[in-house]
């Protein structure tokens, strides 16, 4: 149980079965380019990109089809060559209906001319230029957070960065995309790390990997041997070891202040897949048009790992895996702990799709739940030391002040509490509900305040 383990870890956490055996070997298979892609313009945190193509327009792979709007945003590129069939709302893998560009393939799969470059000396470029390349390549956090990467790489001058941590933990059960990526593209992972260190001016680089991937640990240790600035940190197998704050604590024994960012501690963290994408953008001029994703779960005939184009409908990938074996109930974008159930198989792979998980209906949590028996298991499991039992009770009864007193906004919604609860309470749902209600309440108060001020002003004018 890791009770006496001396591996690095955080406080709290749980031990769900990892379920990685079916896909953690073999190779990443290249999925054939699909005949049709659906590319949402909102695939990142921040402002959705602006569509810059029109219906019937011919596009090439790598061509910008939606431009970044503002600093915290990222451009979107065509992932195949073909004709724009449609621009309009459709379901994305986040379960929301968003603006999407649908492209029908011309079968040529041609890159935009003049896009790809060969830059063996990319490490000589000034950091600003590298950051610009990364921004233009549309790279966002590929671990699932989808935060635009160039923003993370632009810390203000008063917050110097000394350490870059690469997140190769992959603590979500079932997922193996990062694991295989580290095995097959270890060189690019390390090159990506060096690239990020150069851009932010960090001296130290750490690659964090959970102890259940000994082959990846060995491989990356081998590749970084002789580099005194880079080390591989082996982490205890525990969920959510790959949570940003949890991994930072595990590696540095420091805590990101509540409401703060890793850069407050002089740290930048990126997913290993993101590092590879950044390397390829800077080295070869490749924008982000594909990613590695695991297609797995009890409902899938032959689970596999794919290198697939952004915008590939889920259904095409599950087809490539031999389809469903009858046990299908829910299809999830991401892992079982934090992923999002999708409304249909037409939703596309997006930049944050680390896996497509098909769970049988029987595997889902029961709908019924019991009152809290105060067993304390959620408290011991919470990786940020909240009291989830109190949050769920106060959420259920909508006691908003109490919720704030219990630091509800520090909850990372990792799901550990709901997972362990013997009463099967939907704790995370109560917490999300509570957060929403508090924000709505604050907004209401602001509105009221504004109305009062406006009224006072009119009164003044009148007087």
């Amino acid at each position: 149980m890791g009770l006496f383990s001396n591996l690095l870890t955080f406080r709290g956490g749980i031990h769900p079965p990892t379920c990685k055996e079916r896909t953690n070997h073999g190779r990443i298979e290249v999925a054939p380019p699909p005949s049709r892609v659906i590319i949402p313009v909102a695939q990142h945190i921040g402002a959705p990109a602006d569509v810059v193509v029109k219906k019937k327009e011919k596009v090439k792979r790598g061509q910008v089809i939606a431009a970044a709007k503002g600093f915290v945003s990222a451009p979107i590129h065509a992932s195949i060559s073909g004709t724009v069939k449609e621009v309009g709302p459709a379901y994305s893998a986040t379960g929301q209906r968003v603006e999407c560009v649908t492209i029908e393939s011309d079968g040529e799969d041609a890159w935009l001319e003049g896009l790809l470059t060969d830059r063996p000396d990319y490490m000589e470029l000034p950091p600003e230029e590298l950051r610009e390349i990364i921004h233009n390549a549309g790279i966002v956090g590929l671990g699932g957070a989808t935060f635009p990467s160039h923003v993370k790489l632009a810390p203000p001058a008063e917050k110097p960065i000394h350490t870059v941590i690469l997140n190769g933990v992959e603590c979500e059960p079932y997922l193996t995309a990062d694991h295989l990526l580290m095995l097959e593209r270890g060189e690019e992972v390390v090159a990506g790390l060096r690239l990020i260190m150069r851009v932010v001016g960090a001296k130290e680089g750490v690659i964090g990997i959970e102890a259940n991937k000994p082959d990846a640990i060995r491989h990356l240790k081998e590749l970084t041997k002789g580099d005194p600035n880079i080390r591989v940190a082996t982490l205890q197998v525990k969920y959510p070891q790959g949570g940003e704050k949890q991994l930072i604590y595990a590696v540095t024994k420091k805590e990101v202040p509540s409401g703060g960012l890793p850069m407050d501690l002089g740290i930048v963290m990126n997913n290993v897949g993101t590092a590879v994408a950044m390397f390829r953008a800077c080295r070869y001029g490749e924008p982000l048009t594909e990613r590695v994703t695991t297609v797995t779960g009890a409902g899938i005939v032959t689970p596999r790992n794919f290198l697939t184009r952004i915008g590939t409908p889920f259904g095409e990938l599950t087809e490539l895996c031999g389809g469903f074996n009858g046990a299908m109930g829910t299809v999830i974008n991401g892992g079982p702990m934090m992923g999002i159930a999708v409304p249909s198989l037409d939703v596309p792979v997006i930049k944050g799709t680390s896996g497509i998980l098909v769970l049988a209906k029987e595997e889902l949590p029961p709908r019924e739940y019991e009152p809290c028996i105060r067993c304390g298991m959620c408290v011991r499991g919470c990786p940020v030391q909240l009291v989830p039992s109190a949050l769920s009770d106060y959420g259920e009864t909508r006691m908003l002040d109490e919720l704030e007193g219990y630091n509800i906004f520090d909850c990372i919604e990792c799901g550990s509490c709901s997972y362990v609860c013997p009463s099967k309470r939907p704790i995370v749902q109560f917490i999300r509900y509570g957060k929403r209600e508090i924000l709505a309440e604050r907004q209401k108060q602001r509105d009221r305040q504004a109305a009062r001020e406006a009224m006072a002003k009119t009164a003044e004018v009148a007087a």
Partner: protein
Amino acid sequence: MADEQTPTPAPEPPPEGASTPPVVEGSAAPAPPAKAESAETAPAERSATAKPAGDAADKPAKKAKPEKKKKKKGLPEKELVLVGSSSPHVVSDETIPRIMYAVCIALAPAILVGIYCFGLQAVKVLLLTAAACIATEAGLQRLMGRKITVIDGSALVTGLLLAMTLPPSAPWWICTIGGMLAIGVGKQLFGGLAHNPFNPALISRVILLISWPVELTTWMKPGQGFANLGVDVVTAATPLGLMKEELIQKGSIHVVSQFHLMDGLFGLNQLGSLGETSVIALLVGGIFLFYRGYITWHIPVGYVTAVGAVAALFWGIDPSRFAPPAYHLMTGGLFLGAIYMATDMVTCPVTNRGMLIFGIGCGILTYFIRTFGSYPEGVSFAIVIINGAVPLIERWVRPRTYGHNLSAAS
């Protein structure tokens, strides 16, 4: 990955009407109402059917609804039926019955020692008390129209625990009334499992002790239970009882010098309640519960250490009037109370620090009641009293959340 959830998925919760809490079942309603229904009417937080789902199939009347939803959302007709869900999409196989039956298993060694020592008499007390608890639970739940949850094992646990605190010679009606009090007054009166502020078994024991002190303090010697069932029980006082008598009558204690540590550890030759005599047997079960993650060390260790520490302090002051720590640790229901009663999930704090404070409080109070109170044994009273302080402890003792109060961190 921390912000993975930030874009809230559409098919997820949206509670209709901003101020409706996500679940219809109010916690004010003391009993959990029929869950199947509340899950249906609730804005289906957990498994909202994002599509006309097979889920609704068992409720044909409801089928129409998801159909409408589908039209509204304009989902394409053709493809498969997906079941909606909200993260986390998997949960552990831990359940309330699983915990309760694990507690029963943990109690088995001490129960077996009790049966070995007190024979059929012990079997009788155990069966009667457990049966009374189970029957009362089922009867009351039925009477009040609550969901019948008697198979979840919690009534059985209460029954066993209560029986273990009773003298093996307890008459049948004590067992029956005790069981009814535990479930009726200790649990269902407050709304059933999870709503009771006090440990039901101990509430019952306290009422019994006050109402029938003679029956509750008549002890039988080990080793005679198989021969004579309920008749001619040779009685004597427990070690703690002896100590108190001597202290009152002579002003000093001698009984401690006759006490053998081994008796306390193995409990094969000691007077006392049915299940409290063998410290080793109680520890074995406690380690099992610890290993399964159902209890932590905080309460038992805090409790026992506090009793030992306070006892050592007084013994150091005046050894002729106060018993040595080992005597306090090895006698009475200390380990039964510290491992199984004080750790009762529903009635102890949820946080580690809260539990430690709770345990220490129980320990100190136990010592004072034993030494200065009018009853020889203090565990039941102490735990019930500190149970009452749990809301206070919860209010003031909270874990330091990650990223808060960083100066206090290291």
